[in-house]
């Protein structure tokens, strides 16, 4: 079965500093990986996805993610954090032929001024 793990419940970053939110995966076959962000009392917003191709994936709002097959990781990154980036971030892997996503438990990102 496919799974993802987010080892950090919370990440604290100062505004302007780079941020990393970690995700590791366990899949059979080729991984289809996603990052979503959730703001308070809102649904999930798509940030980026890795299907095949370049290991560095660029997404919305200046975020990018690096796919590392040897380390089975798909960490989310941003060069310079904004206070408005504070939210709950979810890594997910697609399972099966359809759109079913398996989500990690989430990482709360807090960016302080």
């Amino acid at each position: 079965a496919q799974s993802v793990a987010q080892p950090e419940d919370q990440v604290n970053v100062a505004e302007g500093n780079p941020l990393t939110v970690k995700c590791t995966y366990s899949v059979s076959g080729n991984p289809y990986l996603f990052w979503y962000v959730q703001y308070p009392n809102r649904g999930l917003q798509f940030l980026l996805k890795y299907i095949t191709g370049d290991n560095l994936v660029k997404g919305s709002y200046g975020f990018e993610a690096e796919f590392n097959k040897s380390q089975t990781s798909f960490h989310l990154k941003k060069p310079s954090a904004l206070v408005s980036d504070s939210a709950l971030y979810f890594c997910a892997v697609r399972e099966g032929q359809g759109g079913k996503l398996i989500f990690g438990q989430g990482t709360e990102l807090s960016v302080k001024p």
Partner: protein
Amino acid sequence: DAGVTQSPTHLIKTRGQHVTLRCSPISGHKSVSWYQQVLGQGPQFIFQYYEKEERGRGNFPDRFSAHQFPNYSSELNVNALLLGDSALYLCASSLAWGLEKEKLFFGSGTQLSVL
């Protein structure tokens, strides 16, 4: 264009009652999925429908059922509510089913509280 719309936004029920949650996908999208998000956890897959047929079911009891209508909107029904059913229920839509580059668009959810 409207995104995925869900109704109601909030709902309070008591144990043993029945609830129906509604979802309208993005115009042109033919697949709808339902997820349950318990506080402090990631969303868990409940159902996926495509072209009015069930295409996937998660590990949820038979008290949970769903339906997709000819206009591609969907309803999630939960019978005999338990306290543990309290959660944010998210609906997601996508263009089709089985496309490699498919991504899900989520609604804002229905917050269900069971007392």
